[in-house]
């Protein structure tokens, strides 16, 4: 997720928020790369959801994206699960 495509994720999330979603689960298992522009989108969506007592839940965060979330200490600001099933079980 980079400067060229991060907005697509944010737009998709905005769509679901507009539809009334309170919690969103993002399965990022296949994500190989996330730049600061991607982080910006994750953060922006999570802040919007938190303002309505919701959350952006991340599943399957591995490799470089996980390192980036750890480095920037964003990891502690998101509920993170290994699988979507585990995430769904908490809702």
């Amino acid at each position, binding site marked *: 997720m980079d400067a*060229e495509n991060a907005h697509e994720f944010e737009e998709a999330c905005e769509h679901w928020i507009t539809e009334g979603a309170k919690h969103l689960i993002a399965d990022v298992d296949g994500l190989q790369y996330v*730049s600061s522009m991607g982080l910006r989108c994750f953060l922006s969506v999570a802040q919007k959801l938190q303002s309505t007592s919701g959350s952006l839940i991340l599943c399957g965060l591995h490799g470089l994206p996980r390192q980036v979330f750890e*480095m920037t200490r964003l990891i502690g600001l998101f509920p993170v699960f290994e699988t979507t099933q585990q995430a769904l079980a908490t809702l």
Partner: protein
Amino acid sequence: MDAPVKRLTLPARPESIAAFCEFVRAGALAAGIAASELEKLDLVLEEILINVARYAYVPDTGKAEVAYFAEKQGKLRVEIADSGRFFNPLEVDPPDLSRGLAERQIGGLGVFLVKNLVESIAYSRKDYRNVLSFTFPSGG
């Protein structure tokens, strides 16, 4: 004998970033840098070049130049230059990583990531050009 320097100059636009990454990746592999490090290298290049593309020449356009050479086996020295307005990204205030979700500022993470992914980095202003030089990867 010094290692040969390779250079690529392209328009300073987001669309050029992929070509710059491919160019430097070839040098990284030739320098013996592990393939597993290449995504980190892409990330560093994107973070620096997106700033050049978005801010260096606004509202005009200009060029970005990327040069590299193998400093030694497994280490690449990369220089990114533009002739835009003076800007030292290393002087940007670091983000406050202790804040909670609601207070977390959305910007400022790019330079922070770059500093954490390279071995060393320096800025200079030479001949009306911004030159950011870094050595990659860290460690080893």
